């Protein structure tokens, strides 16, 4: 999958979540996503960025514009070196949270995107990748 544009942002404070949303919106616009799809991917990015910050103790996001078979899309990779997720299935379940949130962020992000993958190793960190295609 060729990548035509890449940008990396750190997620350390809550203002960074706003920056992640802005970056995602810029990339989504560049790919030419419609208003609904833009809003979906920006919202998913917002959820995952906040998870990275609140549960992963901060991390990084890599935003990419990717091309495959003539289609263009936005791909975002959130990485942290936090405590990791022991039971991913449980974490994806609506209403489950280990913090004070609504427990809808991770599952919601999955539903808002075309591609979703999560890799987590307890004690080592978590890596979530999402993509939204035009």
């Amino acid at each position, binding site marked *: 999958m060729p990548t035509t544009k890449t940008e990396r942002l750190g997620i350390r404070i809550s203002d960074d979540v706003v920056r992640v949303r802005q970056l995602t919106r810029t990339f989504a616009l560049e790919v030419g996503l419609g208003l*609904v799809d833009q*809003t*979906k991917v920006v*919202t998913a990015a917002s*959820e995952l960025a*906040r998870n990275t910050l609140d549960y992963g103790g901060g991390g990084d996001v890599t935003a990419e514009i990717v091309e495959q078979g003539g289609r263009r899309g936005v791909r975002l990779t959130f990485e942290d070196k936090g405590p990791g997720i022991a039971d991913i299935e449980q974490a994806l379940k609506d209403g489950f949270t280990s913090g004070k949130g609504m427990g809808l962020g991770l599952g*919601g992000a999955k539903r*808002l995107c075309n591609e979703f993958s999560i890799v987590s190793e307890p004690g080592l960190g978590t890596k979530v990748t999402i993509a939204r295609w035009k």
Partner: protein
Amino acid sequence: MAGQVGSDVASLVTRNEQNILPEWVELQKNAGTLHTGRISEGELQSQSRNFLHLLRDALTQSGTDTLAAPYEPAKAMLTELSRSRALQGFSPSETATFVFSLKQPLFNALNRDKTLSGEQIASTVWSLTVLLDELGLFTLEIFQKSREEIIVRQQREIAELSTPVVKLWEGILALPLIGTLDSQRTQVVMENLLQTIVDSEAEIAIIDITGVPTVDTLTAQHLLKTVAAARLMGADCLISGIRPQIAQTMVHLGVELNVISKASLADAFAVALRQTGRAVVKARRIEGFALPEKSGRQGA
């Protein structure tokens, strides 16, 4: 020995002021200090002359120790200068150039001075470099601090500006939310709304989110908490301004807003009026109610 270097340089400055000052001003002009038109050449001249004199006095009294008391007037002037330049929109390097560009004229004057040995010149150059670097960094620090003060002030202004609670009708309030709902601002919003509910004995509060670009689960949670708090105080909440893309996104997220929501503020206002036993009707339908006669001007 610092004292010796100090008085040496001080007398050098006194003897060579006629050369140092124009050379320094010229360097600042070449660096583009005047290009933006934010300060005049006259101002630059007098600022440079004042600083040179203050520096000379400080050098005479306490050598090159910038922490000593005689440096206070020079530092006060630098503080004033970098603060005003920060406000005028100068860049950090344009601001720091004021101090750093003084090096060359001073070194030139040292080199022209025939009474000093090579060794003396070398050690004086070093002391002067350290001194001017310290003062330059001091300028940058003040500059940075002033910029931060501006940012903090603007943040406060934005936080206050964007959370007005407006009264639409007797007992009906509206809270038009704009921008990002991070937790600190949400706190202000909630306090404002709850206080206004008490003050105006409101029955219904309409929260309009037309100006909120992204509604994620945290935003939704904040909204729901505000609604719950308002309910505890005896006011019903309506949410308006949910745009189609936001509605679709919220459905995918799985967020349920357990309140009456409407697409526009006008629709929500109509609901609020109905709930409080009122209605908006066209005037001519009411019997015995005369429309005011149109004057010629209004017709145009």
